[in-house]
C-alpha cells in the first residue's frame, strides 16, 4: 500500500518534470520516417519502420531508465525531501520499491504511448496490420523487461554512489550485459582455461541483455518462441529481485545526514 502511494507520487513527479516530453521527439521521428520511407523504399517500408521504431523505443527508454533511475534516491536525500517522508510509518524498503515501481510505471506509460506512435506509422506505410506484427508487441514487452532490469541496477548504484558514478556503472553494466555472450566466446577463443573460466563466470553473473533483443526478428515478422518469453520473464524477475534486495538492505542501513 505504502509502496503504491510512493509509486504514484514518483509517476506524478516524472509527468510534472516534463519527462514525457520525449514523446514529442519520438512522434516527430516516427512521422518523418514514415513519410520518408513511404517515398523511397520499395517493399521494405514495414521492416524499416519496425526496426527504427523499436530501436527508438529502446533507446528512449534506456536513457530515461538510467538518468532518472540514478537520481531516484539520490535526489530525495540531497534535497532532504525524504526526511519528512520517513517520519511516516513507512519502511525504507517500501519507499525504495515505491520509487522503483513509480519509474517503471512512467516507463510503461511512455513505452505504451510510443507503441501507439509506432502503430500509427505502420498503419501509414502498410495500410493495416499483419498477424506477424504480434512479434512487435513481444519485442516491446522484452524492451520493458530490459528497462525494468536497468532501472533496478541504476537504483542499486544510486543507494551508495553519486549520480555520475551510478550512471557510468549502469551504462557500463548494460553494455557488458549486451555483449556477455561475446565475452564468453572471446574467453573460449584464447584457449586459456583461466580466461575461459573468468569469462564464463562473467557471462553468468552479468545481466544478459542480449536475450532481450528480438528487434530484428520482430522486424522480419518472425514468431518469438513462447519458451523465450517465459525464460526472459523469469530471468528478469529473478535478476531484479537479486538487485533490489541488496539495494533495500544498503538503503535501510544508510545514515541520512
Amino acid at each position, binding site marked *: *500500500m*505504502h509502496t503504491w*502511494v510512493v509509486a504514484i*507520487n514518483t509517476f*506524478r*513527479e516524472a509527468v*510534472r*518534470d516534463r519527462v514525457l516530453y520525449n514523446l514529442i521527439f519520438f512522434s516527430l521521428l516516427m512521422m518523418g520516417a514514415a513519410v520518408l520511407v513511404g517515398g523511397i523504399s520499395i517493399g521494405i517500408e514495414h521492416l524499416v519502420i519496425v526496426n527504427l521504431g523499436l530501436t527508438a523505443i529502446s533507446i528512449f527508454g534506456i536513457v530515461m531508465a538510467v538518468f532518472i533511475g540514478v537520481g531516484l534516491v539520490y535526489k530525495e536525500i540531497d*534535497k*532532504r*525531501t*525524504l*526526511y*519528512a*517522508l*520517513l*517520519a*511516516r*510509518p*513507512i*519502511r525504507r524498503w517500501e519507499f525504495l520499491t515505491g520509487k522503483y515501481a513509480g519509474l517503471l510505471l512512467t516507463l510503461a506509460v511512455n513505452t505504451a504511448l510510443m507503441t501507439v506512435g509506432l502503430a500509427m506509422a505502420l498503419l501509414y506505410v502498410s495500410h493495416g496490420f499483419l498477424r506477424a506484427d504480434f512479434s512487435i508487441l513481444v519485442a516491446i514487452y522484452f524492451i520493458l523487461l530490459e528497462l525494468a532490469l536497468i532501472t533496478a541496477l541504476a537504483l542499486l548504484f544510486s543507494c551508495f554512489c553519486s549520480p555520475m558514478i551510478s550512471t557510468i556503472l549502469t551504462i557500463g553494466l548494460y553494455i557488458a550485459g549486451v555483449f556477455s555472450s561475446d565475452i564468453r566466446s572471446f574467453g573460449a577463443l584464447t584457449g586459456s582455461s583461466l580466461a575461459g573460466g573468468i569469462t564464463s563466470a562473467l557471462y553468468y553473473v552479468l545481466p544478459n541483455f542480449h536475450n532481450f533483443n528480438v528487434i530484428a526478428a520482430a522486424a522480419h515478422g518472425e514468431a518469438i518462441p513462447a519458451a523465450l518469453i517465459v525464460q526472459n520473464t523469469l530471468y528478469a524477475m529473478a535478476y531484479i529481485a537479486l538487485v533490489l534486495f541488496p539495494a533495500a538492505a544498503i538503503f535501510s*542501513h544508510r*545514515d*541520512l*545526514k
Partner: protein
Amino acid sequence: MPHKAIEIDGLTKDYYTGFWRKRPHRALDGLTLQVENGEVFGFLGPNGAGKSTTLKLLMGLMFPTAGTARILGRSIEDVGMHKQIGYLPEQPYFYDYLTGRELLDYFARFFGYGPSERRERVDRFLERVGLSAAANIQLRKYSKGMLQRVGIAQAILHDPQVVFLDEPMSGLDPVGRREVRDIILDMRKHGRTVLFSTHILSDAEMLCDRVGVLLSGKLQGVGSPSEILDVRVQGMEILFELPPGRALPPDLAEQTTQTGSRLRVEVPEEELYAALERLHLRQARILSVTPIKATLEDYFFQLVGRENGEHHAVEISKE
C-alpha cells in the same frame, strides 16, 4: 505505569570524516534524557551542538553508534510507532512540483485515511497554518516562511502524540512565530508532547516547561527556564531622577549613568535597600526598581564561553 513520551539512554553518534583515513567525530556524546507526557521541551544549543543529530536519530534517519531511545515506550527502530509522532525537519524542503494541498494529501495517505477524511484534515491544517489561500500553489513558488508553515502542518496533520520540531521558528516573520507558538501551546493544552530545538531563546523561555542545553554533543543540563534564570539574578537596576541642584550619593556616583534627566544605577541585590535609602535622603524620585536577570541568551553565551576555555560560575539543575 504509563510510558514516558521520550526516553533517551546514552545516545551517541560518531560521524566519520576524511577520505583515506577516516577519523571519527563525536556529534552526540551519551545523551540521556527523559521527556514527560504533555511536556513542551526545548532543545537549545549552538550550531553543531548535536540537536538535529538527536532528532534524526529519534526519527530513524540515522543510526546511533551507541545507546538506545524509546518514544511512547516503543523502540525508535519500530516504524509502527511513527503513526504517533510528527516531525518537522530543519529548513524543510518538500516536493516542489506538488501544491501545498497535494503535499499534505500525499503525507496523509500513509495513515490510511479515506478520501473525505484526508480532504477535511488537509483543509483544516492548511487553515491552521494560514495557507488556505496558497493551497493550490506549487511549493516551488512558496517563500521560506510558507515552506516552514506547510512543514508544521505536515508534522501535526495526523494529530500525533509526540511532535518533534527542528527549529520551527526559523524563517518565520513575527506573525508566523506567534502562530507557531500558538500551535505549540495548543498542542500542550491537548496533552501532546512537543520537543523542539531552537536558537531563539525567548521562544524557549516563553513556551517550554523544561529546556535542555546541548553543547558539542554533550548535555550541559536540564531544567525549567525559570530554574536556570533564578539562580542567576545579577543585581538590581534603579531608575531615578534627582531634583535640580542635588548631587548623587558619593558611593553611587561612580556606577551611575545618565540619559537626559534619568539616572540609572545597578547595585547588588543585598545593597538595594541601603541604596534606596541614600537616594531617598537626596529626595530622588524613584522611577523603577528591576531585578537584573540574565536572559537565557546570556546563559547560553556563558556556556559557550566556558566551553572555549573561559570559566563562569554557571550552575543549573541537573537531572
